[in-house]
Every structure is written in structure tokens, then in C-alpha cells.
């Protein structure tokens, strides 16, 4: 692309505009002050300031006009700005001559000029920084529009959910309605297909020849590289996704599942499902419904007893408790849990003298999903109470005296996923029966061994033959 002289001069506009703004506003202030006796001396300075301001306003108008021809901006707004700028220059000229003639009407023209400068300045600012620049942080706290996380990427619409967010984040700022660099808009299907000054930017099913992709892949230092090197760049993943989208036919309405997905694209698509945050994919065992904060006094009572009590996370009110260091556990301690029963989800009692009577109290804590009562004193009688925990998902019964009879009572715990019965009183012959009785539950019977191998005791001093 050859830069013409006029285009080159036009690019000085952003620098030059600040001169008339500053000088003419200063002239206005000088003028007002010079009306007072004590600042009378400023009268002559006003003349000089108006002259300089007028000249710089004319220079800005010319450079601005040259820049507007390049057409990278939205026509309506440019037009307003252009005519306002011309008006500033014209009124400045008039003011200068009126002032030198000591004509009193100058107060009106200087007032008008000041008003015009503010309007022109604002429209100019809107052109470069976007029309919502001034008020953006006030009206919308989050600068970016919040996007809903993609629950299932295969069901997502390729353009709307995959492509558009990338363009919006990295391209819109220069290729939108208000600012159309290279006469290109990327903020809508019709504009993307239309292309820019140099024609089409995307060729369906030929990403490698598409100008959009070519520019993204140019070395960062290259003049034509997009986005410009000082702007946020697209990462490999985003380029790969755009490339894939163009190669699979530039669809604006198809869903991800309707397009062929090469091996390389699959993980990228999958990563979009959790792209909103770095959080884990699988759901931890806490209920979806929110719960109010637990009573602080109740928590205090528990912590005073040496119980670990805390929310499962900063963004959750559900609680985990661990009795690992509690000495002399009593029924009273278990009763303390009742005041946080709505919040209680993960409970650890390992190695504590928990008995069936205590489980009866615990049965009121309906929200429990994980319960570790390994190495406690519970027996088969306790299962009546465990049955009353509908949300129970993981149950650790390692090292307890429970038998098959007790475990069979867990049939009604619909959500139970895993039960650990290593070192319990369940005989080996019942394992198969248990597994048929509780088909949805993984029953870990433990008792794993790592047999001693002959090689375990061989010490090599030379290579094996």
C-alpha cells in the first residue's frame, strides 16, 4: 500500500488538534479576564492567542479533512465532527478580526467558539475511542459484555458462540460501525462476507488464502500483521478456531456438532466449555441450590470444641467439618452440628468414638453428601439413620463393625456413588450380592495386595542377560 502525501498529512490530525483546543480556550480565558481593570494588559495577549489559535484551527481542519477521506471512520460521525471543526476555524477567524477591530460582538463569537470546541472535541474523542468511551465505566462496570459459559460446546452455534466472541474481543475495536479501518467491519455476518477496501477477507473453505487468516499469521513486526502489534493479539487457539470455521464453510447459523471436527480442533472446542474460568470441569459434591450463610455463633461453638468448620469455598456457604483433633467426643458435640444442618455437606469423623445414637442426631443434616465414619463405633443399627440422608454420595465405612445386613439398607439412598468397606465385618462371600443390591454404587472392598515378586529382591550389578 502506497501512502499518499495527503494521507500522510492527514495522520498529523490527532497531534495538531490539541493546539487549537488549548490555544483558543486560553484566548477565551484571556479575553474574559482582560475585561477586568486589573488584567487589562491581557488584551494584547488575547489577540496573539486568537491569531495562533485561528491558524492552528485551520491547519487542523485541513489535516482532519485529509484524514476523513481515508474513510476508516463511520460516515455520520465523521461528518458531524468535520463540520464542527470547520465551524471552529471559521468562528476563530471571525473572532480574531472582530477582536483586532475592538468590536464588542467578539464576546458572542468567543462564547460560540468555546462551545463549538467542546462539541468538536467530544465527537473527535468518540471517533477514536468509541462513542461510549466517556461514560463506559460509569454505566457498565464490566467493560466486556458478560457471556454465558458454554454448557455443551457441541450444541453451541459456531458463529455466535465460538467465532463472534473472538472477533468481539480482538477485532471489533477497529472494525465496527464507528471505526472501519481499511473499510472493513467484522461486527456482523453481512459485513464479514462483504470484506474491506481490498476486497473479500474470507474465502469459504479456503482459510489459507483468506486475507483475514493470512494477516493474523504474518510476523508480528510485519506492517500488515493484524491486530497491530501494540493491540491484544489472538492466541494460537483462537486462530486455529477461526481457521477451522472458515474451512468448514463459513457458516453463520450451524451448530458445532454439524461441522466436521478434525482431531486438533476437538480439544480446543472442549476447552471452550470451561473457558470462562480456570475452574475444574467435574462438579464437586455440593448442591446446586444456594444456601444462606451459616450462623457465626454456631460455627464459633464448634471451633471452640476443636472442630474444623469452614465453607467449602469462598463462593459457597456450604460447610465442611472435620473432627480430626477433637478430644472426648460427646453427643453434645454432634448436636452442635444441628444449627448448621442446612449448610453441612462434607463430614469427617474418622477415628472418633461415633456411635449409632450419634448418627440418629446426624440424620437431621439432610444436605450431607460426603460422610467419613471410618474407624468409628457404628454398627448395623446405624443404617436406619444413614438411610435418612437422601443426598449422600460418598460413604466411608472402613474399619467399622458393619455387616452385609446393614449395607443392604442403603438401597434407598438413590444418590450414593461410592461406599468404602475395607476392614469392615462384611464377609468376602457377600461382595457379589452387595454389588447386585446396589447396582449404581461403586463398592470398594479394599484388601488390595502388592505381591512380592522375585525381581523385588534381585539387586543387579550387571545388565540382565
Amino acid at each position, binding site marked *: 500500500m502506497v501512502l499518499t502525501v495527503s494521507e500522510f498529512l492527514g495522520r498529523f490530525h490527532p497531534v495538531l488538534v490539541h493546539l487549537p483546543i488549548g490555544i483558543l480556550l486560553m484566548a477565551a480565558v484571556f479575553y474574559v479576564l482582560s475585561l477586568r481593570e486589573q488584567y487589562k494588559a491581557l488584551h494584547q495577549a488575547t489577540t496573539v492567542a486568537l491569531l495562533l489559535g485561528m491558524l492552528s484551527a485551520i491547519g487542523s481542519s485541513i489535516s482532519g479533512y485529509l484524514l476523513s477521506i481515508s474513510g476508516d471512520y463511520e460516515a455520520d460521525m465523521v461528518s458531524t465532527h468535520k463540520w464542527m471543526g470547520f465551524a471552529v476555524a471559521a468562528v476563530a477567524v471571525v473572532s480574531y478580526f472582530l477582536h483586532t477591530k475592538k468590536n464588542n460582538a467578539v464576546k458572542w463569537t468567543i462564547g460560540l467558539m468555546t462551545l463549538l470546541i467542546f462539541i468538536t472535541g467530544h465527537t473527535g474523542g468518540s471517533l477514536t475511542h468509541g462513542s461510549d468511551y466517556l461514560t463506559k465505566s460509569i454505566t457498565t462496570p464490566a467493560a466486556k459484555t458478560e457471556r454465558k459459559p458454554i454448557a455443551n460446546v457441541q450444541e453451541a452455534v459456531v458463529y455466535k458462540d465460538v467465532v463472534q466472541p473472538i472477533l468481539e474481543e480482538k477485532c471489533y475495536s477497529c472494525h465496527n460501525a464507528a471505526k472501519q479501518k481499511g473499510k472493513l467491519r467484522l461486527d456482523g455476518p453481512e459485513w464479514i462476507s462483504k470484506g474491506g477496501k481490498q476486497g473479500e477477507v474470507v474465502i469459504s473453505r479456503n482459510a489459507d488464502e483468506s486475507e483475514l487468516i493470512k494477516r493474523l499469521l504474518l510476523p508480528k513486526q510485519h506492517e500488515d500483521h493484524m491486530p497491530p502489534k501494540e493491540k491484544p493479539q489472538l492466541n494460537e487457539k483462537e486462530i486455529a478456531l477461526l481457521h477451522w470455521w472458515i474451512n468448514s464453510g463459513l457458516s453463520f447459523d450451524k451448530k458445532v456438532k454439524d461441522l466436521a471436527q478434525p482431531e486438533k480442533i476437538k480439544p480446543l472446542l472442549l476447552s471452550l466449555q470451561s473457558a470462562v474460568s*480456570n475452574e475444574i470441569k467435574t462438579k464437586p459434591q455440593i448442591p446446586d441450590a444456594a444456601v444462606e450463610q451459616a450462623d457465626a455463633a454456631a460455627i464459633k461453638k464448634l471451633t471452640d470444641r476443636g472442630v474444623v468448620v469452614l465453607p467449602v*469455598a469462598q463462593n459457597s456457604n456450604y460447610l465442611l467439618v472435620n473432627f480430626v483433633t477433637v478430644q472426648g467426643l460427646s453427643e453434645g458435640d454432634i448436636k452442635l452440628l444441628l444449627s448448621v444442618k442446612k449448610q453441612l455437606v462434607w463430614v469427617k469423623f474418622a477415628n472418633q468414638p461415633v456411635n449409632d445414637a450419634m448418627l440418629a442426631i446426624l440424620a437431621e443434616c439432610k444436605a450431607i453428601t460426603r460422610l467419613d465414619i471410618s474407624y468409628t463405633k457404628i454398627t448395623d443399627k446405624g443404617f436406619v439413620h444413614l438411610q435418612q440422608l437422601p443426598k449422600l454420595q460418598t460413604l466411608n465405612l472402613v474399619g467399622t463393625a458393619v455387616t452385609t445386613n446393614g449395607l443392604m439398607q442403603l438401597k434407598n439412598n438413590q444418590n450414593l456413588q461410592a461406599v468404602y468397606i475395607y476392614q469392615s465385618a462384611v464377609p468376602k462371600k457377600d461382595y457379589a450380592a452387595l454389588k447386585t443390591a446396589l447396582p449404581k454404587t461403586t463398592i470398594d472392598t479394599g484388601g*488390595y495386595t*502388592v505381591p512380592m*515378586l522375585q525381581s523385588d529382591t534381585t539387586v543387579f550389578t*550387571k545388565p540382565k542377560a
Partner: protein
Amino acid sequence: MTQKELNNERLATEAKQKELQFFTRRHFLKESAMGFGALALGSLLGSCGNNMGMASSPVFDAAHPLAPRMPFFPAKARSVIYLHMAGAPSQLELFDYKPELAKLNGQDCPPSLLEGKKFAFIRGVPKMLGPQANFKQHGKSGLWVSDYLPHFSTIVDDVSIIKSVTTDQFNHAPAQLLMHTGSARLGRPSIGSWVTYGLGTENQNLPGFVVLTSGGNNPDAGKSVWGSGFLPSVYQGVQCRSEGDPVLFINDPQGMDRDLRKASIDAINKVNQEQYKEFNDPEILSRISQYEMAYKMQISVPEVMNINDEPEYIREMYGAQPGKGSFANNVLLARKLVEKGVRFVQLFDWGWDTHGTSADGAVDIGLINKCRQVDKAMTALILDLKQRGLLDETLVIWGGEFGRTPMQENRDGKEMPFKGRDHHAEAFSMWMAGGGIKGGTTYGETDEIGYSITSGKTEAFDIQATILNQLGFDHEKFTYDFQGRPFRLTDVSGKVITDILA
């Protein structure tokens, strides 16, 4: 006046004078000069801003530095056991099966692999060295594991092997530092310190971060790999010994009974309380809680560190023999510690540096012996955690600091007496299990000879990010303010390896 009265009077005068010093002009000027400066600096730096996220990093509570704290989001893992094979095990003899490399055995290394590369010991043109072990697919998942690890191959369906780990350090100490602190230079906190700083620990009678070493040496990077860096020193790893007293000087000296010990600690704490009232320095509270914890640990640490009370069949399962400083003993201890609510257990086993300079360092001799020392124990660890219902909340990580070259080492350009491999930073393998990791999976690929990574490039930062993620932390938001800016374990890198998460 008796001698005792004289002494008391002298002490009283000394205390009085010490106190008066805080009212002197000199003290005032000194403190205010520093104080105002710091104040001004603080407000200057404060404007740099903190991470404005929903999640906020924990605030250091000096009175209860190890009190349990909540993560950013609900965690899959509550504890971590990190098994580090110091010296760097050979991925080409253990997990990364390269039949093509066997065909090239004994041939000159092509120049394309050597151009622009630096090696620790390889000089000139080395010969390629085929895999010395026999590989087979194991389990339902069909993961490739060599016959060097006969026990481990039975549990592949519970682990995820990452074959595409890479580092930019080819010397042991910096590579270990990078792996554990996120920086190859000294001074950053280790993962265990970050984790205990973030989460505290659930058992206040035990340290939150325990370190156990075996193999006869500490790792090359020294104790900095479990250091607390710029975090408060209470978060550094507590190294316990598996032979003799677990912690040196843990028993009361002769003539000091438990009550007297308690009385003296109470007295010291009372004096410290007075001091705190006077100066409001949070470090004093920290000291008080440390004294109390140390007192409690005198009972609880020897108790938990005793493997004699484990049943015989469990000890046999691990291959543990009480009284020895072995990896097997340490692994068994690690399980016991995690069971008791210890947050982070870090094991180092030394002796994996197989250069081929001796029989012990040969990939076809010494490496087999090293594997034998860890194979049974680490297999037992996974199975034992599993049967106790602990595997789903305990994250286990295994790995070294870098890998080993597909070329045979030719130290100083000469032929070596034994088959060895040089340090290789570009590609190596690690595995993870439990704590929300998807079992029976592999992640990443290397080229046909295991020289470079072809997909799934994984840096130390990615491993660290994944560990933090499983513990409920967004590694990008988990920061500590130091020298005027927030610091992260993963610095400016790191992405969670989502492909290996269940």
C-alpha cells in the same frame, strides 16, 4: 543483700532501661525516618493495585497462621503427596515407549538434533541408545509401561501419565527449583508453602507441610525446594526423619518433665503476650502459636511418624521396614500423615541420575535397582489410599526435574563404561493420580525417538496450575504481595491440564 536479690535488682534495672530506650529521641528519629519512608512507599506502591477478582488471596493471620482456610472454589483434593525422583528418571526406560529408537541403537546421532543444543555432558557426536527396558500395554486403558515397574503396571487405570513435560533447565538444582517454586533462581516459595499458606491445615497438632527424603542425599537444590521464600517462614516444609527421632530434639531433655515443659512454655507465652500488648507486632502472636504447636507436636509427631503400629500386612504391602530411611517407609508415612489431615507431604528420593559413569548410574543396571526401591511402595500407596477412601481427595504426583536423552552419554566425547543418558530438558514424563485426576489416561506425545514434544507441551507451571486447581485455587488469582507487586506460583504462565481431569 543476697546474691539472688542483687540479681533480681539488676534484671529489673535492665528491663527498665530497655523500656526507656523506646522513649529516647534517637529511637524516635530512627523509627520515624524508616516509618515515614515505608508509609510513603506503601501508598505509592499501593496504587499499583491488587487483583480485582471475586476470589481474593488469603490474608496472613499471624495468630493462627496454619488455621484451615477455604479455597476459591470447591476443591477435588484436600491433600497432596508429591513424590520427586531427584536426579531425573529416564522416561525412555519407564513410560515413553519408542520402538523407532531401538532401530537406531548404536547409530550416530544426526546433526539436526545437536545443532544449537546444549547438553550437560554430551560432547561431539553421540550414539543413539535404544530403550533398555521391554514395554507392554497394561490395564483396561492399555497404557504402555516398561518391565522396570512390574507393580506400577497393575495400577495404570488409576493414573494419568503426562508424556510431554518440558523444562528450560538442564542442571539438577535449577530444574528442581523450577519444578517446585516456579523459578529456577532461589527465593521463591515452594508449592507446599503456597498450598499451606492458602489452605492452612486441618490438623493443628501436626505441621501442615512435611518433607521426607530418602536415597541417602537431599536433592541437589537443597532445602530451598521446600523453602517458604518470601512467604512467612511458618509455611516452609518441616523435614522429618524416618530413622531415629522424626524431628531432632523433639523429646524433652533429661530432668525436664512434661508439666515443667508446659509451665515454661506458658511463662514464655505470658511474657510474649505482654510484649504484644506493648508493640502490637503480629509476629509475636505467630511466635506464641508456634510454641504451643511445638508443645503439642512433641506428642503427636512421634505418634504419627511411627510405622511400627501399622499391621504387618500393610508394611509388607509397601515393602516398609521400620528403622530404615527408605522410600517405602516414607511413602507409608505419607499415607499416615494425609490420613491425619496433613495438607502437603513432599518426598524426595535421590539417586536417579543415570549418566552411565558407574554400574549404579547405568540405565540397564542401577536404574532397575532404583525402580525396584520405589515401584512396590508407590503402587501400594495408590492402592492403600484407594481402599481407605482417601484417593479421591488426595492428589499424588510423581516425577523428576527433567528427562534423559535418547542418545547415550559420551562424557568429554569418550565412550562410557556403562550405558547412560545425559540430562534432557526438552521432554520427559510424569504421572498424577487421585484428587480428581482421570485414571487410565495419557496426555501429550513426543516424536518417534522421544527427543521433542509433538503435542500437549506441559511446563512446570502447567503442573503447578493443575495442582492448585485441584485444591480449589485459580493459579492466576492466588497471589502474595511482595516488594510492591503480587506474586504467583506460576509467575506469568501456566494453564490447567484440563484433559487429565475427571
